[in-house]
């Protein structure tokens, strides 16, 4: 085994490791170079956030347009304040749109869906959604139904 063959083998080994890392980044975790694109933050106040979590999905008409940044409790109103970052190119969300918490499938994860309003003005960075609809709670639904309210 000459020094040269060893060098080549080790070089190939390190390259294989690099290629595998690239594979994990691009194919497995779906990291794309454009994921560092610009975003802006908007807020929504919910009575009940249900099961949404930070890093969750924000979608519009089923297309992912952003992600959930943080969920905090507003101590004045006892509502949950959700900050979400929306992709920069989606800059024309009508100002009277509503943020709705939906569930994908019957038991799937929860996400925020933006249902479009009709206003000519659009949401600006830092704005808060005019209307929200909280997570549907099946237990509450059933108990309301059972007590006839």
């Amino acid at each position, binding site marked *: 085994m000459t*020094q040269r063959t*060893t060098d080549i083998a*080790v070089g190939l*080994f390190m390259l294989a490791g690099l290629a595998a890392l690239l*594979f994990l*980044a691009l194919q*497995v975790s*779906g990291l794309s170079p454009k994921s560092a694109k610009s975003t802006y933050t908007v807020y929504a106040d919910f009575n009940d956030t249900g099961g949404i979590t930070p*890093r969750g999905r924000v979608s519009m008409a089923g297309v992912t347009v952003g992600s959930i940044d943080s969920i905090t409790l507003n101590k004045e109103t006892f509502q949950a304040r959700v900050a979400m970052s929306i992709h920069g190119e989606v800059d024309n969300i009508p100002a009277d749109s509503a943020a709705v918490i939906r569930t994908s499938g019957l038991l799937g994860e929860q996400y925020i869906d933006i249902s479009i309003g009709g206003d000519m003005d659009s949401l600006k960075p830092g704005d808060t959604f005019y209307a929200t609809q909280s997570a549907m709670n099946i237990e509450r639904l059933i108990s309301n139904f059972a007590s006839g309210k």
Partner: protein
Amino acid sequence: MIDKIASFGRSGIDLVISIGRAGRFLGGVLSGVPRPVTGFPLLLKQLYSVGVLSLAIIVVSGLFIGMVLGLQGYTILSDFGSEAAIGQMIALTLVRELGPVVTALLFAGRAGSALTAEIGLMKATEQLSSMEMMGVDPLRRVIAPRLWAGFIAMPVLAIIFSMVGIWGGMLVGVEWLGVFEGSYWGNMQASVDFRDDVINGVIKSVVFGFVCAWIAVYQGYDCVPTSAGISSATTKTVVYSSLAVLGLDFVLTAVMFGNF
């Protein structure tokens, strides 16, 4: 009775002494600044024997583990009609846990034991002391390249293991059992995060590589220079490395994914 208590105490003191020696040994190895020109070929040679030659066992085990995950995952998930989530399950299991841990266990068995036996035999045949006589520091010449090689090779091996495993899972899940290929990759990409999952897995394997290589070279350097001593040092390397890897894995998982 008194003798028993005394021997119990002595074994405790011996344990503390041996941990102290291992720490001092590590300090000695790391404080010697590696010389870039003469040290690099030595490191490459060790990378070859520790990393490149371990590739075969890593690739084969990765493939089979991925295939087993695909098979088991399909059986369980299809009960709930959610076999499309198989890609997500395989990728998260491999990248977070099995990749780093199984690679480290295989590495301890394949490369760690060889390192211990090699250094132990060098000590038994007094090669290390003759190096010292010639004014060559054995820590820098023999130990440091092996320690660094283990440290560098382990993350590379773990990444390759995960990649091969995910491919093996696809082989079973998509090609054989007929899960739709788009949902295999799509679910995986939606749930695996590069920073939180892939990078944390790499950090784990870096830690494991360091611990395994340290235990291996220390056991070789510190062994009793007889054939029985070398054999017990080799056994200790595998046992201690495996225990350290599994214990550290719990701690690292709790810190990285614990959410508390």
